[in-house]
């Protein structure tokens, strides 16, 4: 390199770097910040005690064959309380059942909370020690997984579900034929 040209090299390298960073930013909005390795893979198999009836078990096998939303929550989680109203609306819409995972929670707290605020879930599995959440790669509550009839995780939503997220991210991923389904608990 000769003369003045070599002094432009740092600027040129920086230019390239800016391009890479810009592409990096452009790509990041489509991805979740914490990309889940589970997407496109079978949901973890589980068999856990039910919150409402500890003698019963909630297992992934029972859930095969239809779409469901797997929602990780806890009464200690403030954002989950914020999300609760939206979950009740989803239940009312009757499009897809909600399966709750009560994460590291106190059973009494959880039951009284649901009694006061309403229960949007079809069934609720209890994960007392947090080991099931680890299987799902849960980073923090609330997190919601969309699982298809083949038991494959289609989508993961981090944070409280909003009206927009429900309309723009979750509903379009469901087949149009998904019939309203009863969602009694």
């Amino acid at each position: 390199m000769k003369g003045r040209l070599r002094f432009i090299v740092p600027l040129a390298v920086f230019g390239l770097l800016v391009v890479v960073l810009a592409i990096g930013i452009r790509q990041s909005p489509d991805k979740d910040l914490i990309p889940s390795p589970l997407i496109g893979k079978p949901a973890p198999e589980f068999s856990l005690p039910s919150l409402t009836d500890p003698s019963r078990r909630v297992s992934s096998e029972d859930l095969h064959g239809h779409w469901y939303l797997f929602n990780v929550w806890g009464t200690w989680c403030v954002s989950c309380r914020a999300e609760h109203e939206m979950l009740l609306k989803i239940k009312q819409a009757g499009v897809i059942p909600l399966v709750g995972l009560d994460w590291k929670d106190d059973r009494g707290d959880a039951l009284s909370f649901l009694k006061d605020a309403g229960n949007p879930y079809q069934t609720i599995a209890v994960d007392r020690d947090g080991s099931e959440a680890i299987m799902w790669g849960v980073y923090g509550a609330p997190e919601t997984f969309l699982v298809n009839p083949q038991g494959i995780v289609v989508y993961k939503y981090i944070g409280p579900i909003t009206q927009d997220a429900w309309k723009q991210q979750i509903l379009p991923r469901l087949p149009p034929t998904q019939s309203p389904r009863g969602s009694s608990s």
Partner: protein
Amino acid sequence: MIPELGQFTLILAMLLAALQAFFGMVGPALKRDRWMAAVIPAVSGQCVMVAASMGCLVASFVANDFSVQYVAENSNSALPVFYRVAAVWGSHSGSLILWIFLLACWSVAAAIGTQKLPKAFASRVLGVLGLISFGFLLYTLATSNPFLRLDPPWPDGESLNPILQDPGLAGHPPVLYTGYVGLAVAFAFAGAAMLEGRLDKDWARWTRPWTTAAWAFLSCGIALGSWWAYYTLGWGGFWFWDPVENASFMPWLMATALIHSLAVTEKRGLFKSWTLLLAVLAFSLSLVGTFLVRSGVLVSVHSFAASPTRGTFILAFLIVMIGSALALYAWRAPLLKSEAGFELTARESFLLFNNILLVTACATVFAGTMAPLISSALNLGKLSVGPPYFNPTFLLSMLPLLALLSLGIHARWKRGKLGERARPLVLTLIAAAVIGCAVVFGLFTGGRVLAPVGITLGAWIILSSLIDPIDRLRRHITIPRAVLGMTLAHIGLGIFVISITSVEGFTAERDVALGPGSTAQLGAYQFLFEGVQPIEGPNYSGVGATVIVTRRGAPVAVMHPEKRQYWVQRTETTASSIKMYYTSNILVALGQDLGEGHWSLRLQVRPLVSFIWLAAFIMAAGGMLAISDRRYRLAPAEEPAISPVGAVTRGQA
């Protein structure tokens, strides 16, 4: 009320920063003395406003004002007051406030420190600092305002991530940021020099103490962060080559190169354009580091919640700051002429090697950090780069650096003869090699191939650093503080090399399953597991184990590793118990409950590990000692350039 006051003062600070940038840079260009005179009040006013704003945020945290979103998301009423204050910088928005606050403090220091410099130059320095400050203030107010209110307020806040609830963490970001931000001053000096078209030896001498100070803080900050990671993450690692760690390490490598290159520019008038480029790059890397950490393009265990808007904003800021600095460089640097040549074995060449190797090391770290990003940008799939890449590539440039160091500090300026220094150098090398082999093959058995090399190099650096001070002492010549500081910093580096080598080479580790009353043996140490008891902390509960450690029957320590469950966030962390014994670190971490009172435990004996951090502090102390040298106390502005080359004494660097 208080949060609104905080936001208001933050806006005022931004306006003052804009004035500071405008008057600071336009004033000298148009030669308006009154404009330049307005810079100082703008700097101090900005600092007062930023301090007030930061005070408001701290007050909101202390008062548990959960109507402020940032407070609600990062603190809760169960948190002790100390951690509530530390929670201010526990997350993105607040750490920006801390960043801006520290920049304001550095700016005031720069305003005081440049009083004796030519007015136009001083004004430009402060102008560049004002521009940086304005950018960050605008960014904070536009994308990450910490004073936003919640309606309705939360009854109680979320808790700090439990691994962040620790005195080591509370302390390390302020120190680290002080270093990061300090590099802005070196950057501002370079910017002012380029704007003015003035780049002489004076410039180098003015810039040196600021660079060294920032470097010393950066060293301490990195060491504190690594120490925190060591004892909280619970499995005994001290460096993970994580993007966030690299983001702090790359500016450090650049600053180290800059310190050495500034020495050459000051003493010999060489490497001028190179020094300028390093000053720009060192701060640019801290900005790029900020970008990587904040924009969410790289996901790291340390990273804060990130958003693409923030990323776009920081990228625009990077383009303005770094892009204009590099464009200015492309324009001005060709005009700089080196004043003299030098021989291949003169000190100049050793410092050139030092710079090349440090910059290479930095480039390899940069490449490794960016590789996942580049590969996903080009749709080559997800790539993860870890220690298997970083360790060998980094060593590749570090080993020659360490090997050349002892020769470099004894080489003379301009002419390449070691002269009477050849003999003590060879003697110290032999002594170091003997120590190295004795340690590796005598004290410990085995070890890796690099162990004797590492110990020998480290010992050689320490011994050869002592040649010059001892020589001066014997001849009753006073040792300037700059030389003492350099010696101390190099000794710190030697200690660092030895301790890293011994930790990497001689750590003994065992995973065991123990029931109450049973023991396990590791090296000379015996570990007796007494069982676990429940424990209650201020905002967590958990189990704590008692492990009694003995060495050949003599009691060494009683250790209490814990597993904590934090109430609010329901996250579990492992608090391993670490005890010093002689020079070894004994570490016991509590693993899984295996039932019936049996637990899995990880036992480690890591020789010399504490010296890694001690060495970093010694290096930083060396830097601080060097700054206090009389040479940097400025005489009035028009002082003639530094003493002629011939009068420069050997060993001043």
